[in-house]
């Protein structure tokens, strides 16, 4: 962009003022306070916007109340434009394309595109050599230069530098190498402290191990002490047992003495004793037996007879048998009678009727009364016959007939009734049968009587039989069940037979027995003698006379043996050692005292043991406390958590730091390609400005150094004089503007007062500007322009009108 004209309507001291601007170099001269800076501000204002209300900021309000603003005529893209910006607070922007005679649509957009990538700040930094910079020269740092430099590659990226700085600052707020207050530093202190606490916990481990050893020792001591207790207790127990035995011991002693006093009794073996006794017994027994048998023999033995006359009895039985036959005969008779009676009775359906009287019989046979019948008949006939003759007679005859007839009828009825009555009684027989049966009926009572007789006879016969049979049975003393007589008789006969035979056998047997008995008596006697001999032999062995003596001696020897045995028993219950020990004591009391003494001893040992156990419990409790104390674990986790926090914070810290570096690096890269060119140009300008004093500018690790041509000695920027620093600054700025040419061309606005140079230098700068920078437009405000050999000088006091 090139400025062609400045048209101010109202701005600061200027009002309705136009200036023409040379394409290449336009100089504005005038003393101080002549509105030089105003024009510059105007240019910047039109391009980037008028100043806003801020502290210490000149608003350039038009003095005479003219409309605020104005226009710039510029050349861009080979075309002329008029950029008109009116009004400070409510600004309107109009851009007219003068060449094409068109208004530019979206002027703001167009303008910012044209100016891109410049902002007001970057424009000021690069193209506007402002008076403000003058004040800052003293404090110019490398950083400022850096910023400038970085502007080359990435114009408008100086914000990134600020960002980078902020990030760096933010990082430093978190952590600094030697700080104690910063958060991360504090965290680290905390962390170290916790770690130390953790380390100190390891002393717990020493205590733990030591305590464990102590516990082991205590356990050992307890074991030993337990043995001691056991031993003491055993001793006590032993003595106590001895005490129990003391009584026995006493008995032992007494017994010993007793035995010592007695004489020995020869021992009789139990065998001999029992044998003697048994022999004695046998002898007695045998003797008694013999006596008894002898006695028995003397009593005449009658074979056991039954006093029974068998023959007689047999005869009786046979008689009874005959009786039985008679009896049966009677029975048969009875049967017959019974049958006959039954025959008669059977004929009737009901009870047997009584015998008919003769009359009745006649009735039956005759049937009806013939006489009467004939009578009636006669009367009747006569009557009828006589009717002819004599009716009265006839009537009387008839009446008689009737009368006899009725009488006949009545008697006939009665007769019939009687017949019916008879028929009923004799049912089911008919009349003839009835008549026939009258004979039987007459006999019936006789039959009954006979039957009774038979019954009686049967009874008596039976009774007699029974009696006689019973008698027989009584005599033989057996009774059979009520059987039929015949059977009974047979049984009895058999029995008699049997008995008779038995008796005979017995008799034979008893004879034999007697013989035997005699023999046995003999035998027994011989045995008896043998036994007697044996016994006397036995007794002789012991020089004794009889069994009693033997027994007495035996008992005595037994007693003696028992005593011996007791002695042995007692000895076995009390060992030799024990006896020795016990014998040392005068009496029970002494032993008892010793026992008490031992008891106390046991107590003492027990007490020691329980003390040790208590000690163990205490140690174990302490140990348990150590092992249950998990503070160690919690501390470990605490340390880990703190470490996590520190790592997170350091991550943030490093991210900030590295981001800052990153920005630097990126910017540096971005500016990399332009940098050498710029450096070269700056060096060149610097050499000229310093009149060849310095010939090199060196950038080293964010430091700027300059080299003296003659001596090749390098000086840091800080070491330069203010003047040299200014020159360096100018050289760099100009180089910057120069190099940036390929991105954007803007006019350089230089305020003379900024440049603290003498006339000569000023000229050289301008020469540089004009000759070195192709096409670069320069607007130069100065107080005097004598050194300029140009026509483009606008005298602000003369050539203009003031508002």
């Amino acid at each position: 962009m090139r400025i062609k004209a400045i048209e101010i309507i109202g701005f600061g001291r200027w009002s309705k003022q136009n200036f023409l601007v040379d394409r290449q170099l336009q100089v504005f001269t005038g003393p101080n306070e002549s509105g030089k800076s105003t024009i510059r501000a105007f240019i910047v204002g039109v391009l980037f916007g008028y100043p806003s209300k801020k502290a210490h900021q000149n608003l350039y309000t038009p003095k005479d109340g003219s409309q605020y603003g104005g226009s710039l005529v510029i050349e861009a893209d080979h075309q002329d434009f008029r950029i008109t910006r009116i009004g400070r607070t409510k600004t309107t922007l109009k851009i007219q394309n003068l060449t094409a005679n068109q208004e530019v649509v979206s002027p703001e957009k167009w303008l910012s595109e044209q100016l891109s990538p410049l902002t007001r700040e970057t424009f000021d930094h690069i193209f506007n050599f402002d008076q403000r910079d003058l004040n800052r020269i003293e404090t110019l740092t490398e950083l400022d230069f850096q910023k400038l430099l970085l502007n080359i590659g990435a114009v408008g990226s100086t914000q990134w530098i600020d960002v980078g700085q902020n990030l760096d600052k933010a990082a430093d707020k978190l952590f600094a190498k030697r700080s104690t207050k910063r958060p991360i530093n504090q965290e680290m202190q905390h962390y170290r402290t916790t770690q130390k606490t953790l380390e100190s916990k390891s002393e717990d481990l020493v205590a733990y191990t030591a305590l464990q050893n102590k516990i082991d020792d205590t356990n050992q001591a307890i074991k030993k002490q337990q043995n001691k207790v056991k031993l003491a207790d055993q001793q006590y127990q032993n003595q106590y047992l001895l005490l129990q035995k003391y009584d026995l011991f006493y008995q032992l002693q007494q017994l010993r003495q007793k035995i010592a006093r007695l004489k020995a009794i020869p021992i009789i073996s139990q065998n001999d004793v029992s044998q003697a006794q048994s022999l004695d017994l046998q002898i007695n027994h045998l003797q008694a037996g013999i006596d008894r048998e002898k006695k028995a023999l003397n009593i005449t033995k009658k074979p056991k007879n039954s006093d029974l006359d068998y023959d007689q009895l047999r005869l009786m039985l046979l008689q009874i048998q005959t009786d039985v036959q008679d009896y049966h005969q009677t029975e048969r008779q009875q049967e017959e009678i019974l049958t006959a009676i039954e025959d008669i009775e059977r004929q009737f359906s009901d009870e047997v009727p009584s015998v008919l009287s003769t009359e009745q019989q006649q009735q039956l046979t005759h049937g009806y009364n013939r006489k009467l019948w004939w009578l009636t008949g006669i009367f009747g006939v006569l009557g009828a016959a006589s009717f002819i003759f004599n009716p009265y007679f006839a009537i009387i005859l008839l009446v008689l007939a009737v009368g006899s007839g009725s009488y006949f009828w009545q008697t006939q009825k009665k007769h019939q009734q009687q017949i019916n009555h008879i028929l009923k009684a004799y049912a089911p027989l008919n009349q003839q049968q009835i008549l026939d049966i009258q004979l039987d009926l007459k006999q019936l009572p006789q039959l009954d009587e006979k039957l009774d007789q038979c019954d009686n006879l049967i009874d008596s016969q039976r009774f007699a039989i029974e009696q006689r049979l019973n008698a027989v049975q009584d005599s033989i003393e057996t009774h059979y069940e009520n059987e039929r007589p015949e059977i009974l008789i047979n049984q009895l006969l058999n029995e008699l037979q049997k008995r008779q035979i038995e008796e005979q056998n017995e008799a034979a047997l008893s004879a034999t027995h007697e013989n035997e008995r005699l023999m046995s008596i003999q035998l027994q006697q011989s045995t008896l003698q043998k036994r007697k001999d044996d016994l006397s032999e036995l007794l002789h062995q012991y020089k004794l006379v009889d069994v009693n003596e033997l027994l007495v001696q035996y008992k005595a020897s037994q007693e003696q043996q028992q005593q011996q045995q007791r002695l042995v028993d007692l000895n076995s219950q009390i060992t030799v050692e024990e006896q020795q020990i016990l014998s040392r004591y005068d009496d029970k009391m002494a032993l008892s005292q010793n026992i008490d003494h031992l008891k106390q001893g046991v107590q003492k040992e027990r007490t020691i043991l329980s003390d040790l156990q208590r000690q163990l419990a205490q140690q174990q409790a302490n140990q348990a406390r150590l092992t249950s104390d998990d503070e160690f674990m919690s501390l470990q986790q605490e340390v880990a958590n703190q470490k996590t926090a520190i790592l997170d914070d350091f991550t943030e810290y490093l991210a900030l730091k590295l981001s800052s570096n990153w920005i630097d690096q990126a910017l540096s890269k971005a500016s990399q390609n332009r940098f050498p060119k710029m450096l070269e140009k700056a060096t060149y300008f610097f050499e000229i400005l310093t009149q060849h004093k310095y010939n090199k500018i060196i950038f080293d690790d964010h430091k700027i150094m300059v080299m003296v041509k003659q001596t090749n000695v390098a000086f840091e920027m800080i070491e330069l004089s203010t003047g040299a620093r200014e020159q360096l600054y100018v050289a760099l700025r100009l180089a910057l503007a120069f190099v940036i040419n390929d991105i954007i061309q803007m006019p350089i606005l230089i305020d003379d007062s900024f440049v603290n140079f003498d006339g000569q230098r000023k000229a050289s700068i301008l020469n540089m500007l004009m000759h070195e920078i192709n096409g670069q437009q320069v607007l130069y405000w100065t107080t005097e322009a004598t050194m300029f050999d140009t026509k483009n000088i606008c005298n602000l006091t003369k050539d203009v009108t003031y508002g």
Partner: protein
Amino acid sequence: MKFIHAGDVHLGNPFSGLDQQLPYELKNKYKMPQLRLLQP
């Protein structure tokens, strides 16, 4: 024959990467996860 190969038991090793916000219940429930491996 059989045997166990168990490397890097790291008894009692705390967890890394947990911040202080770990809730109390979780802290206590899993207080000693390493030891849990060895507790009967």
